[in-house]
């Protein structure tokens, strides 16, 4: 019990230590989630534009761009 209490209070420095680690964790998590959301948004927009092309244009785009193939493959895996 004493060990847990010492771990939480950090001998009087708990507020500063836990606040520091929490701010770092929350900030990093927020940036990660925002970056991931933006990436997904652009992938979706790219796919929407690809779907909007006619069959010939779409096939040509897929044939000439491995990146387009990759986005299509990863999005179909995740969806």
């Amino acid at each position, binding site marked *: 019990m004493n060990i847990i209490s010492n771990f939480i209070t950090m001998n009087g420095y708990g507020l500063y*230590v836990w606040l*520091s680690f929490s701010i770092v964790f929350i900030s990093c998590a927020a940036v990660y989630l925002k*970056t991931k959301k933006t990436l997904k948004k652009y992938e979706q927009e790219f796919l929407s534009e690809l779907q909007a092309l006619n069959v010939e244009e779409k096939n040509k785009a897929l044939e000439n761009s491995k990146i387009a193939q990759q986005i299509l493959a990863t999005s179909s895996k995740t969806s």
Partner: protein
Amino acid sequence: MFKFFSATNIYLLIHKLIKFINSIFFLILVIGLTFALVLSPPDYLQGDAVRIMYVHVPSAWIGLACFSVITFLSVLNFIFKIKNFYFINKSIAPIGLLFTWLAIVTGSLWGQPTWGTWWAWDARLTSMLALMLFYIFYILTFKLLNNEVLIIKITSIIAIVGSINLPIIKYSVEWWTTLHQPASIKITGSSSIHSEMLMPLMVMLLVFLLYAALIFLMKYKTEIIRIKKKNIKRN
């Protein structure tokens, strides 16, 4: 050799790297936090407040390293006009800002129990604040302007002017009398930090580097998709 650095190969490599970092990140994070919060000893003077070092120091190092890379690539881009560097810098800058901000905030939280104040306008703290302002101006240039040529010019000037601040940050604790302690870890010469504290610090640095790499790769991937989206009908 140059074919390897094509957008397609880079994109495929980024995809694999993101997967790899995601697979090892949490394991290294748990190891790092266990060392930083449980296994590493308290300092003989600062007690457990020293644990803030494990997030403060890597943040400051990465904040400085990001600006150094931005400056280096800006100079190269200014001379050789390599467009890829523009996208790399655009992806690195928010990471540098995040870590510089974290270094300032955690430094403030470390300062209160050890110095008795949250903030002092001394050389190290003020020069770190100046670095954060350079990052803000740098990122705002991308957000507010549309002309790519103008953006490259302005961001290169900000990076080159801002780079003058980097040696000031590094040597501020030697050139002036500051509240901030001198460097405990030296690349050349002997470090004054004990190995029981150095090891957790290095593990936490690895955690932060992996996180920074992950965010960079995701942002860079977004930039590639944005360009491909523009050119989709031209393919």
